[in-house]
């Protein structure tokens, strides 16, 4: 994929932080509002994909190494499984929500009713959302990146 015009690139640069922050917001509030790790991750990844489209795959690959991205992807996966295993260690069962009610990290028990949501609730759910979010952002971005790069190199092969 080649670079697009300057207008597109500028607009993409401006829009990127907003889209990214919105994605991260959806991830962080996954245990309170509709959404979560996957949805937020997809939004954030689409922001990354926008940059990719605007600046071209060559430029993006110069800036970001695909190998490094897959490390982050693994970290996301490890985080998810590790939290589940911690449930086995500290709580009673695999995937047990051992943090809830502990008053530690995200440990508050939420008030009932339709009041304002408290982000400090949910136990391990937000943590898992972060892990999944990381994995999804990086994973989807890698997919798009590799596909775009492959398409470009294929076009060059044909020439």
């Amino acid at each position, binding site marked *: 994929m080649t670079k697009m015009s300057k207008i597109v690139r500028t607009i993409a640069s401006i829009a990127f932080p907003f889209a990214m922050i919105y994605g991260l917001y959806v991830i962080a509030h996954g245990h*309170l*509002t*509709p959404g*979560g790790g*996957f*949805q937020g991750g*997809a939004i954030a990844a689409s922001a990354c994909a926008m940059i990719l489209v605007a600046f071209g795959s060559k430029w993006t690959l110069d800036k970001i190494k695909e190998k490094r991205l897959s490390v982050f992807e693994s970290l996301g996966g490890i985080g998810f499984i590790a939290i589940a295993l911690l449930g086995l260690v500290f709580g009673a069962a695999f995937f047990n929500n051992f943090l809830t009610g502990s008053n530690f990290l995200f440990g508050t028990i*939420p*008030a*009932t*009713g*339709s009041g304002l949501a408290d982000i400090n609730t949910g136990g391990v759910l937000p943590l898992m959302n972060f892990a999944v979010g990381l994995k999804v952002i990086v994973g*989807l971005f890698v*997919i798009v990146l*590799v*596909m775009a790069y*492959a*398409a470009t190199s*294929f076009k060059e092969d044909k020439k």
Partner: protein
Amino acid sequence: MIFNIPYIAVAVLILLGLYALIFKRNLIKMVIGITLIESGVNLFLITLGYRKESIAPIYTSSPGGVMAFPVPQALTLTSIVIGVAVIALMLSLVMHIYRHYGTLDVRKVRRLKE
């Protein structure tokens, strides 16, 4: 009758998808067929959880009124996530096939014998 419209849509989507899968010869269109079936199934799942005049199931306890059933929504989400992975994999395979065969026509992608 009006409440059956989603189910009709489900049937239409799945049949359309099957049609595309079976009769279309372009690989991309086959991928689209799979997507259509998947959308149909997802729509079916989400419709199962629908309740009339219900609210989103995001409160610790309901502020009055009924909540929509959350389990089908969770199932649908999972299914969507899986669907993304499948579609991504299929499209990347289509790219590879195009690279090797120079075509997207199913009839010409036949290097494997019967």
